[in-house]
């Protein structure tokens, strides 16, 4: 039965209305909008779902890792409520101000401490910084193969079979474990936690590991291990000059729109 690890990130809800989004250009950070809740990054929930589908079919154990700070426990326990077995939090000031590289390093070190693994799942990208580097980076630090942007993952005999999304369709890839897979939204909707699962998850102990616990080289962590520098963060200005085409009724407005498109030589 496969040992599986899923890496998830807690972020501000990316579905929040764009109008509420603000940044502080001086500190190059996002100003938390009031009323926007924290969630598990959606692609990471799909990574959890991919692991759960394998567990449904073949059994096995799922350990969830999350690196971050200011964890909202009800939120970050969600993968366990969905059916994962364990959750380990990685929290240490040494992990902060990381780039994708130093984040991947810390997660790889934590995975080594977890020990045995056949499959590691990550979301294809975190829905905040959208870089999509950490999954591949973990595989690189662990020296194992990676398959990115998966829409289907299964185990057939002792092999892992991954359907990977490419521009004009998909490719089916076969690989021997251990392997790291990043999961895309094409996998389908993640399951909702059931009440029983939520209650069981709430009772579980959640250990927190520090840099020392995972035996990390602090020169590789956080800002020290980062190679990318964010020089500027800003919200692009939108012109917002939409001409609303009116009419007696929707049908009439549609006719006026057609005439407008002809007038503007767009058709």
């Amino acid at each position: 039965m496969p040992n599986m690890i899923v890496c998830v990130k807690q972020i501000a809800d990316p579905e929040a209305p764009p109008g509420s989004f603000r940044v502080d250009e001086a500190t190059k950070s996002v100003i938390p909008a009031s009323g926007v809740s924290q969630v598990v990054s959606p692609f990471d929930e799909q990574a959890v779902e991919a692991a759960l589908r394998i567990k449904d079919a073949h059994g096995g154990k799922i350990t969830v890792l999350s690196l971050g700070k200011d964890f909202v426990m009800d939120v970050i326990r969600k993968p366990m409520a969905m059916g994962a077995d364990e959750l380990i939090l990685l929290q240490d000031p040494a992990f902060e101000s990381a780039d994708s590289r130093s984040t991947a390093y810390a997660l790889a070190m934590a995975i080594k401490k977890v020990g045995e693994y056949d499959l590691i799942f990550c979301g294809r990208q975190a829905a905040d910084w959208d870089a999509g580097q950490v999954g591949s980076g973990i595989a690189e630090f662990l020296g194992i193969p990676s398959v990115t942007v998966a829409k289907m993952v299964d185990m057939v005999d002792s092999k892992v079979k991954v359907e990977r999304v490419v521009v004009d369709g998909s490719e089916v890839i076969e690989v021997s474990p251990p392997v790291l897979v990043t999961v895309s939204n094409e996998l389908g909707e993640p399951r909702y936690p059931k009440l029983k699962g939520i209650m069981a998850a709430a009772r579980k102990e959640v250990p927190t590991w520090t840099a020392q616990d995972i035996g990390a080289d602090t020169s590789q962590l956080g800002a020290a291990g980062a190679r990318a520098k964010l020089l500027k963060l800003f919200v692009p200005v939108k012109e917002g000059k939409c001409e609303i085409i009116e009419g007696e009724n929707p049908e009439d407005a549609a006719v006026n729109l057609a005439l407008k498109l002809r007038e503007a030589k767009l058709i």
Partner: protein
Amino acid sequence: MAENKGVMVCGEIIEGKLAAITLEMLGGARALADTLGEELSLVLMGSGVGNLTSEAIACGADKVYVVDDPLLADYQTDSYIVVMEKVVKQVAPNILLLGQTAMGRDLAPRLAFRLDTAVAMDCIELSIDPDSKLMLGTRPVYGGNARGVYASETRPQMATVRVKAMEPKERDDSRKGEVISIESGLDPSMIRTKIVDKLKEEVVGIKLEDAEAVVCGGRGIGSPEAFQDLETLAKILGGAVGATRPPCDNGWVPSTIQIGLTGKIISPTLYIAVALSGSSQHMAGCTGAKNIIAINKDPEANIFKEARFGVVGDYKKVLPALTEKLKELLAG
């Protein structure tokens, strides 16, 4: 590090031709190389790719490094990373660009970490800082709500480039360049993955990426059947149908027509957005659209901030009337 010189583009080949993104990157990278007064090179990996070198030179490359090996016929992480690591160590470029494609987004992070450098993913703009001479990569972050400008002091400075973010150079067959062959150094045991099948989504009619007119439906369309009405309008306009993420995730339409940050990137002349809110995640896929037309019953929908023309109303009433009138106008 001072010895790293030149701008290098990691090329992609699709069905025996240089991919559009590769020509776009050559165009954008030419400007970077000229600003720095450095050379522009292209790496071509594949099987039987030697015939593409003259096009690469005509489109801006000063040097083309060819790595030809049957083991490179398909993109696989393990083979391409070994070759790129070898080429980069041999040539020692200052800047290395890859496409933000299935290949580039897979290869770039692993390659960057192996080379102990950083990569700015999905850049829409690249420039050279006049003082530091570092490459500045601008990329959408937070689902397109913000932009981040990144740099790195390690070499090579790496970025992946979004499709259609840069203009290819006009082909000039009088340009001269050099072709250099490099041994792949691969043996089959290095490749741990195996492609066992390729499932190609058949496209009926014009390809979404090539269409001048795109009719795109969102969550508000409500059902797979209702997408037929979008097809009808697209057909009249000689265009293609796209969708936002929810209709794809709900299985109403194939995910190959998804437009957005995690889907296709398009830049049509006319983009008719039907019953979609215009989330940043979606707009990331069509920022290059020249004229956005919004049809939505919610006057507060974000799409009206992006659109040139809009109709506030139920698409079920608006779309048939619009289709009818456009048909009449186009027939006349």
